[in-house]
């Protein structure tokens, strides 16, 4: 829970522990990622992670 002293640099996962897929949108109701984006996240490099994060605000407003 406490993330003090955490090493900086890495792009943090947007998961907020809701972890429930919306069948209509195909997005997680918490972080708004697709299943493929969640499954692949750990293997993405920082730029690819940022590219996923950049898409999330638009998805939030589209909801």
């Amino acid at each position, binding site marked *: *829970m*406490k*993330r*003090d*002293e*955490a*090493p900086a640099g*890495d792009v943090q*996962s947007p*998961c*907020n*522990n*809701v*972890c*429930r*897929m919306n069948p209509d949108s195909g997005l*997680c109701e*918490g972080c708004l990622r697709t*299943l*493929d984006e*969640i*499954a692949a*996240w*750990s*293997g993405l490099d920082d730029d690819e992670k940022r590219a996923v994060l950049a898409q999330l605000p638009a998805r939030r407003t589209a909801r």
Partner: protein
Amino acid sequence: MKLPRSIRVIERGWLSANNIVLEERSEAVVVDSGYVAHAPQTLALLERALAGKKLARLVNTHCHSDHMGGNAAIQKKFGCAISIPQGEAPAIDNWDEQQLILAVADQRAQAFSYDDTFRDGDVLQMGGLDWQVIAAPGHDTHAVMFHSPEARVLISGDALWENGFGVVFPQLFGRETALAETRATLEAVGRLDVDVVIPGHGPPFGDAGAALERAFHRLEGYEQDIARLARHCAKVMLSFSLLEKRSMPLAELPAYVARVPILAELNSRYLRMTHAAMAEWLVNELERAGAAGRREGLLLARGE
């Protein structure tokens, strides 16, 4: 920091532990199954990750709700075998809610049956690699880690995270030795050749030495002041519940901390506050840590 191609980490959050998929030819093994409430997403993620490969086996690092909550659902959907640490077997056989830290902490899991057990010193084959089973008591007396000397990868469960380790329960339920066990487990990690650690929560990381340093620092704080550990424990337990419930009425929190046995015991042994004071303190602490906020009479999980 590079993982062998046969290992895929599905990074989850704090309520669900990471799912680690290890593939060899047409078969796969998965380590840890997440929290029960997340089981539908876990199944969907595994289906994607497996891409038609057969899931032969599900293996648990330990039997806490965030690591084994999806066992039953995965077993049902994929028909795989389940292997658990030998020390966890009696608690699973009897579905011992206290030992498994379920009802006593207001957590849930779905009962499952396992096919076999493993223990310290055993070697498991997963993803075409031999994994040494290493006892990792502390956070859970019966937890294990998996180490591949060949790939120099450690699957650490909750024994070591990039920043800390899974909460250790101070002298609750007869666990007087938990801190000493934690120290021994961290020392055991320090003796391994490790290039990459795959923790139960958070992304895989490379610098095990730096993580160990942070973990020992934290452990020393608890060793010097057991009340500090008790406070940390109470915060972690409420945070976890809040992640599942998403929101809790502030007015009901005093009754909640009185009703949930693990919180009540932490309070009566270490914190010694009124229930109202404990609830207020916890809310302030969670807010301060950025884990929660309050709005319209509710305590809300971050992101709500």
